[in-house]
């Protein structure tokens, strides 16, 4: 015990020696420590700190974070808008016609002027669609997308405009400049207005609504598949007496299948299956507008395959799974099949490749 105390005493003595030696510290060092106090006293920053306040630059990190979040938000929103507009421009989405026709409609309120403007801008898929949308604008409706277009009155105006040579000329030009699934079918059918309606998946006013049985009983009803993927239920069907198109749709929650059956007037060019780069969606990344070469775009957007060329592998080439927030993970895709009797079946919807292939195999039976 005493040894411990002795040791403690010795340590204390040595500490005292250091303490004594510190008395000989340079005055400059001591003065500096005092000066720092003065400096601190005069420093507004320190005063603020003593008062519990922080100068504004003390929040620099927070401000930087806020600025970054704002910048990222603006960029994300801009990117989203750009992507949306790019998607519209690529013709892959239902809002295609609406997006462009809205722009056309904003430039003019009269049908003639809209025709000119949309022709110059290369907007829209067909003149019919443009006129229809512009009519919507004139009637005061909000026409941001094709789904607005389809509900708008003015189909008569559409037909009048479509009949004019200038309009058809313009429509061809637009179809070339903005290839899309709808445009390719539209060129085949020669009626642009229906294209827009097909795009949005709902029959126009001129379509006659049919039950599933009635649809199957139609002339081309045999091309409605008997093997619908599991879980799908019949939703609607329609018949267009003007161009003889038959369409039918099935749905399963957010998933849907839409088939449009028609007999193209003109000869339809089918895709060369030996060139998968023209139609295989797995080879490219979204957005396709940036990755798919321009020369393949028209075919890529909605390839038409000859039934003889069709196989499960071809269907797999066209089905893609997109991880969209709030959406299902069911693969989606679109393509058309030209049967040997000249019937064109356009598919657009969701399902596994096997299900879709089985569905096509059940057609005509």
């Amino acid at each position, binding site marked *: 015990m005493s040894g411990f105390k002795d040791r403690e005493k010795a340590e*204390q003595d040595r500490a005292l*020696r250091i303490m004594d030696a510190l008395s000989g510290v340079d005055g400059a060092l001591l003065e500096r420590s005092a000066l720092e106090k003065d400096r601190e006293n005069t420093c507004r920053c320190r005063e603020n700190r003593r008062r519990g306040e922080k100068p504004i630059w003390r929040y620099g990190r927070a401000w930087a974070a806020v600025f970054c979040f704002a910048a990222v938000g603006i960029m994300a929103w801009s990117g989203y808008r750009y992507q949306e507009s790019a998607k519209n421009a690529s013709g892959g989405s239902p809002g295609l016609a609406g997006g462009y026709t809205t722009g056309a409609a904003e430039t003019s309120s009269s049908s003639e002027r809209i025709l000119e403007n949309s022709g110059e801008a290369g907007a829209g898929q067909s003149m019919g669609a443009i006129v229809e949308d512009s009519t919507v604008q004139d009637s005061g409706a909000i026409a941001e997308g094709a789904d607005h277009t389809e509900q708008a009155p003015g189909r008569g105006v559409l037909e009048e405009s479509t009949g004019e040579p200038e309009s058809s000329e313009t429509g061809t030009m637009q179809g070339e400049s903005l290839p899309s699934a709808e445009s390719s079918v539209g060129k085949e059918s020669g009626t642009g207005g229906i294209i827009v309606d097909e795009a949005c998946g709902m029959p126009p006013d001129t379509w006659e609504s049919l039950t599933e049985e009635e649809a199957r009983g139609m002339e081309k009803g045999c091309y409605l598949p008997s093997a619908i993927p599991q879980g799908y239920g019949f939703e609607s069907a329609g018949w267009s007496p003007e161009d003889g198109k038959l369409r039918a749709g099935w749905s399963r929650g957010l998933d849907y299948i839409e088939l449009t059956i028609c007999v193209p007037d003109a000869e339809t060019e089918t895709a060369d299956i030996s060139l998968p780069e023209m139609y295989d969606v797995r080879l490219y990344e979204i957005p396709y507008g940036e990755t798919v070469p321009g020369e393949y775009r028209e075919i890529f957007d909605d390839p038409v395959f000859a039934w003889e060329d069709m196989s499960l592998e071809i269907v797999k080439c066209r089905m893609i799974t997109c991880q969209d927030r709030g959406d299902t993970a069911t693969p989606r895709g679109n393509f058309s099949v030209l049967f040997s009797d000249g019937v064109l079946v356009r598919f657009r919807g969701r399902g596994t490749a096997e299900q879709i292939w089985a569905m096509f195999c059940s057609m005509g039976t």
Partner: protein
Amino acid sequence: MPAASLSRWKFLPYRGAGVKGRNWNGGNRLKDTEIMELYWAREERAIAETQRAYGGYCYSIAWNILYSREDSDECVNDTWLRAWNAMPPRRPERLALFLGTITRNLSLDRWKEKHTMKRGNGEMMLALEELAECVPDVRGTEEAVEAAELQRLLNTFLYTLPERDCNVFLRRYWYVEEYGEIAKRYGMKLNTVRTSLFRTRTKLRKYLEKEGIVL
């Protein structure tokens, strides 16, 4: 003036005694040069002016070491006596440091003499305990280092430290200030002060060991 004639100063306790954090530089006081002129002119007013100017400063140094009002007052009064005897011939560049050093030495001597502080009472014991960490191992005892050499090494060491660490170290072990007081002075967090001192002590120990110092 003989020292005996200054005895009345011994009974003139500093008015601000015991008030920590008092601004010892405040008030309309004479400049250092003027005070020193009074010393050199052997005017008794020099003591009064010194006490007015540096009474609080010296008292705080003594208080931190002795933790006793009476002892601190005596040390401060002794400081004036020492200053009176030292000037002339001395003419210190910084009167405050000159007086502060005298007070500190007197206080340390008094602390050693009386050693009345109970363990754990007062900053001095704590400071000594902390400084004991800096003492190199004494095994293999060699010739003890001279005080002057130790002073030189300490000065050298302190100049190697970052300014802030050096200041904190001196505030703790020269002025024997509390952690909280140092933290407040430099606008630092308490833990930052602790960490700074711990690191400096570790550095000092290594430095002294490297220099082969045996205390």
